[in-house]
């Protein structure tokens, strides 16, 4: 055995380097087989699973981002629509307010003019009432004065109160039947009448009635 080994040592030591050593071929085969086994059994499946998951995660992330962008765009669109609505609404309200204002102004003007009318009317009425009151009081006073004057002129005959009262009544009735112009005229002409026509209220009134 020993010489054979020695010879072989010599052979492999000086052999061409391109001559494969059987032991190294064997070990190389075994080692490569083991590495292949580990690669196919464990390493590649693990790495491929992880890469697939990563790709899925990236794709999911991108999908999520796309969704978010779509949502943001939708929201923007909605806001724009709302803004347009709000603008239209504001314009509508402004228009409404303007017409309302115009209406209010017209109403106020109406009310003011009616009020003015009312005030004018009531003032007229008051003036009329005052005038009537003045006429009445004047008439009473005038009646008294005329009666007094007539009494003085006619004498004691007229002092009888019942008679005097009747004469005054008649005189006043005559006066009431006449128009306001006549009353006014009578008011203005009573004085001269009473003084110029001392004949008596009955004669003065009688000649004025027609």
């Amino acid at each position, binding site marked *: 055995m020993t010489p*054979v*080994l*020695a010879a*072989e*040592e010599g052979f*492999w*030591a*000086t*052999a*061409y*380097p*391109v*001559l*494969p*050593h*059987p*032991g*190294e*071929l*064997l*070990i*190389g*085969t075994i*080692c*490569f087989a*083991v*590495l*292949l086994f*580990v*690669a*196919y059994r*464990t*390493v*590649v499946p*693990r*790495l*491929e*699973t*992880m890469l697939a*998951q*990563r790709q899925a*995660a990236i794709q999911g992330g991108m999908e999520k981002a796309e969704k978010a962008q779509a949502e943001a765009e939708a929201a923007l669109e909605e806001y724009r629509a709302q803004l347009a609505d709000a603008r239209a609404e504001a314009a509508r309200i402004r228009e409404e307010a303007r017409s309302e204002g115009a209406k209010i102004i017209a109403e106020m003007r109406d009310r003011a003019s009616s009020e003015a009318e009312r005030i004018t009317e009531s003032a007229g009425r008051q003036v009329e009432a005052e005038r009537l009151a003045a006429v009445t009081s004047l008439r009473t006073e005038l009646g008294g004065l005329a009666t007094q004057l007539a009494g003085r002129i006619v004498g004691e005959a007229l002092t009888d109160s019942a008679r005097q009262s009747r004469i005054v009544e008649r005189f006043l009735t005559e006066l009431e039947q006449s128009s306001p112009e006549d009353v006014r005229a009578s008011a203005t002409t009573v004085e001269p009448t009473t003084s110029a026509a001392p004949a008596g209220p009955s004669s003065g009134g009688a000649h004025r009635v027609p």
Partner: protein
Amino acid sequence: MIALPASAGFTPPSPADFWQPLIGDGAFAVTRPMVVMVLTTAAICLVLVLATKKLSLVPSRGQWALEGVYGLVRNSVGRDIIGAARVRPYIGFLFAIFTLVLVNNLMGITPVVQYPTFSRIGFPIVLAIAVWLVYIAAHVRHNGVGGTLKHLVPPGLPFAAVPVVFVLELLTFLVIRPLTLALRLFGNMFAGHMLLLLFALGGEYMLLHGGFPLNVVALPTFLIYFFLTAFEILISFLQAYVFVLLTSLYIAEVYAGDH
């Protein structure tokens, strides 16, 4: 260089330096690259299994690095060459090749280990045969034997050229591809390590035994050694990348007639 050892007593590195039996001897001796291969495989398996134990969608620093390597093989090589629809069954294969070749190549410049496993032709042959089996099996499964043979001859070829091209393509398909795949990796790692050995041993010899003019030259020799070490990192990565790239191209050819 051949004259050098005789005159100066310097023994230059030789292919015999790559024969490093640790236990026993002969065809089934346990050699240093075997141990490196077993340890690196165990380390790769351990790291991969542990690193993929808790994968998160937002990667940690370690997971990010792992994903970088995985993504390079899966996307930049596998998916871009074979196609996204077809690459899934081959990812593990490509990833195993890439990690095994890369880590073992880097072992050539890793302190203490300092042995590029793939500078022993036995290991690249294993990978080349595996690739060969995979792409032939895929071809036959996808296109059938007839379709595979027909596929070797590009359409529109002059009738007279068909037999010649067929023989050449068949040779390429069955022999040259796996052969170049194995030899390329082996040659790169073998030659690279030989260069490193030469500059390291030569520099050391010149510094210690060379005498006045030579021990001054030792300094640039070591500088070149460092430069080559850095270069070797690049080669380590490049060879691993080229290996999976070519594997992907061979596999992609299976589906080339589909569209």
